[in-house]
């Protein structure tokens, strides 16, 4: 491979290949993202002639128009409400159940535990039609809770599993000592378990929030009125209305993924840990 320089120090091409490889992949990832952001600043005509470069004239009104519209803020508000409710309910319900499975043995606890892990095996899509009928019969169609409750239910299996493992790994002497002192399980849960569980709360909370924030299928089936749409539904409607005006659509995409990117930059450690946690140890 490098025969002429064999006697001297061998030239090693590996770092060069590596740099080239990483640059190519980085370009593969960033080019679509950057052209999306920049595309939002261009006029439609310029988008066609100059898709890659910086805009010749920055058309701020694409972005300002969207930021000034009620629609954009309503979509974000709906998404925020749905994702927050889902996250809060998932944390509360799953932490309590995880606590029971971690510390309390009772008749049938093993079986119930296995019953709950069945949910890991199939996605919500398998039962989406019966789920729709159930939500309709409960009178929850076209309400936030019609989206939130199924989302929480489908995230329970994984969340309970994560909580149970974390609670089990807490030093058992703590619980024994507290019980001997006459502390009830419920008080122990509130005053000892929860304060010690910030990392797992952050992890499970992140998974629940990101999944709900990005979710499409369940809201699509459960919601009818634009006023309740979270942003993934809203942006599809927007794209349908402005089908050929790509500069506006790109600006809208940029503004809707902006919160995700900001959150990702702020909390990358938690997000990476959270989104891979279920996988690594599940």
């Amino acid at each position, binding site marked *: 491979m490098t025969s002429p320089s064999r006697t001297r120090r061998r030239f090693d091409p*590996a770092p060069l290949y590596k740099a080239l*490889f*990483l640059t190519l992949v*980085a370009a*593969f*990832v960033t*080019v*679509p*993202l950057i*052209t999306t952001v920049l595309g939002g600043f261009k006029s*439609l005509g310029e988008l*066609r002639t100059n898709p*890659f470069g910086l805009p010749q004239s920055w058309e701020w009104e694409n972005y300002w128009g969207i930021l000034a519209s009620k629609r954009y803020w309503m979509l974000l508000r709906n998404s925020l409400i749905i994702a927050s409710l889902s996250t809060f309910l998932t944390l509360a319900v799953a932490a*309590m*159940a995880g*606590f*029971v499975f971690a510390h*309390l043995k*009772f008749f049938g606890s093993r079986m119930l535990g296995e019953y*709950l892990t069945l949910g890991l*095996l*199939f*996605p919500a*899509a*398998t*039962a*989406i*039609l*019966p789920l*729709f*009928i*159930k939500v309709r019969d409960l009178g929850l169609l076209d309400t936030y809770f019609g989206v939130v409750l199924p989302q929480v*239910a*489908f995230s329970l299996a994984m969340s309970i599993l994560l909580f149970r493992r974390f609670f089990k790994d807490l030093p058992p002497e*703590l619980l024994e*000592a*507290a019980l001997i*002192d006459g502390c*009830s*399980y*419920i*008080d122990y849960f509130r*005053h000892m378990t929860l304060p010690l569980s910030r990392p797992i709360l952050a992890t499970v909370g992140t998974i629940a929030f990101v999944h709900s924030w*990005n979710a*499409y*299928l369940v809201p699509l*089936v459960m919601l009818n009125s634009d006023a309740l749409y979270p942003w*993934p539904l809203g*942006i*599809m409607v927007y794209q349908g209305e402005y089908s050929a005006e*790509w500069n506006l*659509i790109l600006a809208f*995409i940029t503004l809707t*993924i902006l919160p995700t*990117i900001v959150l*990702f930059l702020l909390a990358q450690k938690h997000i*990476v840990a959270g*989104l891979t946690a279920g*996988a*690594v140890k599940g």
Partner: protein
Amino acid sequence: MTSTVSASVPRPRARGSSLGKLLADDKLATIALFLPPALLLYTLFVILPIGEAGFYSAFSWNGFGSPTNWVGLDNYRYVFENRAFGLALRNNVLIIVVSLLIQLPLALALAIALSERFRGAVALRMLFFLPYVLAEIATGLIFSFVYDGNYGLLASIWRLFGAEAPHLLASPQTSMLAILIVIVWKYFGFHMMLYIAALQGIDRSLIEAARIDGASRFELLRYVVIPLLSPTIRLSVFFSVVGSLQLFDLIMPLTRGGPADSSNTIVSFLYNFGVMRMRVGFGSAVGVILFCICVTFAFTYKRWMMRDD
């Protein structure tokens, strides 16, 4: 020890008689309070619907009133006779194959390259993970711009070479290819992170020892690193398959399953043919089939591939 704990725990209330009985009651109360919310939600929205899917799949029903038109297994026959369902199955298999043959090796190579410490390694990891965090809908829309025949990036690259741009998403021959590229773009970072986490757990001295023994780069990879990573690789294969079986959100903004049903997955087939037309029985049958595929795969894979983990 006891004193340190009771300092941060509320003072015990004075309790009279047998401590054991009280503890048992406390246990019961905790179970009665903590378990029902989870069990109720889970049973109502996860277990019952999948059971009901089995029930509804035996009826021809539009969702109004109650199902009365019993058709036995006809819905399953219609599903399997449907040409679009065959295509959807083929597409799911295709997605799995591409995930295994292109996405996972790419993720592994990147993980190995980025597990060494150098300037920018962490930033690159985060950059490559970013697509996984973005919503499928946003990703799909971004790429429907990339592929757009008039304004898209690909079109302008083509024009640079003086060629007429192909409409990748508009042709049944290329729609799936276009989607597969997006899938790799979106998900390789997730698998890369799994591998990086696993590589950090590897005992470096094993690699050093092999290096001192004169192993070449390839041998190091083939006989040391990959065997050490095999539990993670098996896990990552599992996630690729399960993820591809439920792929839906990405399909809708790109093609909605078209043209001519060339790019449906099982779930988008279920949506287009079951939900959109409110054919509850037919859609439920598709759901049941998907359920069986998922469960069968999970059990056999766990039994055969992950039994030593």
